[in-house]
């Protein structure tokens, strides 16, 4: 059987911050690949560099060391405009800070993503249990509900890769499983998912878990 060419290749990645003139190494020597239809979780303690790794994979933070190839292109050899265009089409990003626009209703927030129609936006909101709140504004929702809106926005334009930074940070068990289930289904439909999470229950939904502190890759079949 032909090997599927990987969607994302992270090669020997490392990042160093400068804090008051002192170098702080967040992580280094991080390598992994994500194939289409694969659901990957990144785990590690707070401050271990999960968000930094995800931002680098999304082309929003140039790493200090190593390289990232996405769909065959070296992400950081592209111009900023090319990277933005690529991200707009092929990457859906759920920020830890959510970044919803407070004065747009939920449908309009989801429609910010490339080429998403009103119907598709509302379908995703419905799928995530917010079908009766589509005309609401983010300020009228709980944090957990806002997280689900941000997830709908990251997924609605069917990107090749969804990057989700703590998508269940403030959700109860039932809603966390709803979100993991949606991401699992997304991967089964052919989309790749890279997710940072603290939740140990996430491992039952994912194909691969990366422990960023020990740079240990655990495949689902090994668990």
């Amino acid at each position, binding site marked *: 059987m032909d090997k599927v060419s990987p969607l994302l290749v992270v090669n020997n990645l490392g990042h160093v911050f400068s804090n008051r003139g002192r170098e702080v190494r967040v992580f280094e020597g991080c390598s992994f690949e994500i194939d289409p239809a694969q659901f990957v979780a990144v785990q590690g303690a707070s401050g271990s560099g999960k968000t930094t790794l995800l931002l680098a994979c999304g082309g*929003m933070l140039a790493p200090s060391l190593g390289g990232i190839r996405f769909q065959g292109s070296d992400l950081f050899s592209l111009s900023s405009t090319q990277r933005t265009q690529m*991200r*707009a089409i092929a990457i859906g*990003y759920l920020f830890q800070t959510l970044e919803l*626009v407070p*004065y*747009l209703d939920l449908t309009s927030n989801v429609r*910010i993503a490339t080429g998403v129609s009103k119907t598709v936006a509302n379908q995703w909101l419905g799928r995530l249990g917010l079908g009766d709140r589509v005309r609401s504004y983010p300020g009228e929702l709980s944090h957990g509900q806002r997280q689900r809106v941000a997830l709908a*926005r*990251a997924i609605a334009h069917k990107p090749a890769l969804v990057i989700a930074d703590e998508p269940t940070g403030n959700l109860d068990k039932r809603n966390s499983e709803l979100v993991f289930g949606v991401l699992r289904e997304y991967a089964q439909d052919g989309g790749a998912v890279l997710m940072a999470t603290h939740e140990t229950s996430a491992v039952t939904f994912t194909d691969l878990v990366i422990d960023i502190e020990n740079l240990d890759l655990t495949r689902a079949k090994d668990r």
Partner: protein
Amino acid sequence: MSFFGVFYLALIIAMLVADFRFTNWSDMSSLLSDARVRFSIWLSLISCTIAAILSLWVAIPTGFVLARLGSESMTQRLGQRSRGFRRLFNGARYFIDTLLDIPIVLPPLVVGISLLVLFQTPVGRWLDQRTGEVFASLGYAGIRGITYEIPAVILAQFTVAAAFAIRTMRNTFEQIDDRPERVAVTLGASHYQAFSMIALPQAWRGIVAAFTLAWARSLGEFGPILIFAGTARMKTEVLSTTVYLNFQFGNLRGAVSASLILVTLAIVVLILTRLITLGGNSKKGVIV
């Protein structure tokens, strides 16, 4: 400090009271019965509205671009460029900013003379002629071009009003956080979508303020109109020129009555603007 403020307030009220006491209803009535004055009122209302719309059309995108070029995120992005590029960029930005403020600081007569001279150049004459042809083809053969015709009134008003509208829109967009726009672009929105879906709805109070300011500024415009459009009655006469013509011919009561119409229109527009822009982040109706 507050004493001088009270004094200035008293001066404004005293001027208005003096105007109202100087004239009476019969003066106003006789002025309004004059078809030429009614024409000037209509021309004022129409030309000011067109000039204000044109001003907004220019001011919204220009104000947005100027505000974003000076934003903190742009400064951070420029930080990655060479020092020479940063200097060139900032120099060009300040130069454009200064150019756009020129109509504000120039004496109004100079704006009028500059427009008149511009339309004496080959390009200006060509444009003048083509405009006349366009109006003729549309069935308005009476408008023979731009200079000393109604388009000159609108152009003169627009030239000054647009500068004020741009300044207002730039201030408005500077007060709007650009982070949601940048996030939207990161998530796949085009720059136009980020502008139209995210920045523009936030700026509506500023847009109302810019429109009002442009409209009110156009209403009070006199110098450029006098030079560039002339004061032909039933042709290019607007309310400000009605005041001038009445004064010129010794009809002080008529001039004051026409002034009161201008004052009334200006007050109505200012009150409406304050009512519309009340609330939100607009500092309770203050025109930014």
